């Protein structure tokens, strides 16, 4: 009998960031730490804003480029347009 069983948690090993054709870059001079990007990131690759705190006590968002697929949702929802999608080039 064949069973479709696998070791769990293997998605961590698959660095989906390599699928990306554009990378989101956050301009911390414009960022207001509202946390919209963190809230909307479908992966979720954006962390660290700490939305539970008052705006002046929050941190800038951190993007995990190992798993970010470059979908651009963060750039789209950013109310101050501080996230730019920059083409990946080597």
């Amino acid at each position, binding site marked *: *009998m064949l*069973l479709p*069983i*696998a070791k769990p948690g293997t998605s961590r090993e698959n660095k989906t960031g390599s699928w990306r054709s554009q990378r989101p870059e956050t301009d911390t001079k414009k960022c207001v730490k509202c946390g919209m990007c963190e809230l909307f990131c479908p992966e979720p690759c954006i962390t660290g804003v700490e939305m539970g705190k008052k705006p002046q006590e929050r941190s800038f968002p951190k993007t995990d480029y190992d798993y970010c697929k470059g979908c651009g949702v963060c750039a789209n929802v950013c109310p101050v347009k501080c996230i730019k999608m920059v083409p990946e080039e080597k």
Partner: protein
Amino acid sequence: MARKTVEGSFAVAEAVKNCEPDVAACYPITPSTHVAEELASFYANGEIKAYIATEAELSSMSACIGASAAGSRTVTVTSSQGMALMHEAVYNAAGMRLPIVMIVGNRSLSAPLNIWNDWQDSVTERDSGWIQIYCENGQEATDAVPQAFKIAEAVSLPVMVCFDGFYITHAVEPIDVPSLEEVKKFLPPFRPAVKLDPKNPMSMGEYAFPAHYQLFRDDLQKDMVASEKKVKEIHDEYAKMFGRSYGSGVLEEYRSQDAESVLVSMGSVCGNAKEAVDQLRAKGEKVGLVRLRLLRPFPYAAVAKALEGKKIVGVFEKSYSLGALPPLYGEVLAAAADLKSRPVISSFVGGLGGKDVTVGNVLELYGKMKQGKKLVEWV
């Protein structure tokens, strides 16, 4: 064992209870509602460990999959649109090799909306990898329940116990319901080889790449075909223990051994067909009935053997495949294809959406068959 004059649904529910399921997950739907309702009241009385009242049938089957994967003996009850809503999870249950038992009160599919009996709901799911047993009366449906759990757990495949909506679900009959102690002797506790366990984490129902997917389906196909033997064995074992048998466990031959003209069918209509056979036999006509009990896996060799030497065969079914030959007919044709002298095999589709099939109607079918011409018609 207690003989009760009881509705088919209630006897089946009691049989389910006596199999000591760990989890029942159901959403009530006509005409199988009374089975779910009775299971819920068993739970309320502390006689079933867990009953999940889900918000819809896709959730019922999904809850069953989760519970079964965690090592629970699991059951659900449904009919018609409910089963259609389960569809994708029905395939998952088989693909994950989970021995879930589904009690099916057979009913038509919309549209037009209709709550009455035919087999289209479960016949539609025939390709999903579930073993399907079709019962003739309340007693057989009740007896099929402990067998279903035992078969499912022996071959790691899910099993449907199908019985006709209203004709059996709501008919009051004297039924012997096997007791808890008796079932205990027949059905060992469920001890799956693999189950979800926090100490040994695993992902079940994983995806398979193109190189492997077909291997899984091939394995499932082989095990499905091989399960026919187990269905028979477990039926025989039950018969020995409880004194009730249903043909060979895969099909029943009623006065058909020396018959020239044989009707093939399934389910409750076979009660009327047997009466029609008796009436025609009394007049000296050599007629018989072959009642299929197992639709999946399909017992090709047993059907071929039962039809060997017959001149005329008619297949009556309450199912169809729109734009093609009806499913049961197609299988019987295939089963008879290699017979040395092939009988004339006709197809009759009828009894859809609760359209009554009386003894008189069955006599008409034997009359049509007597002409010796191949017919493919809806009656």
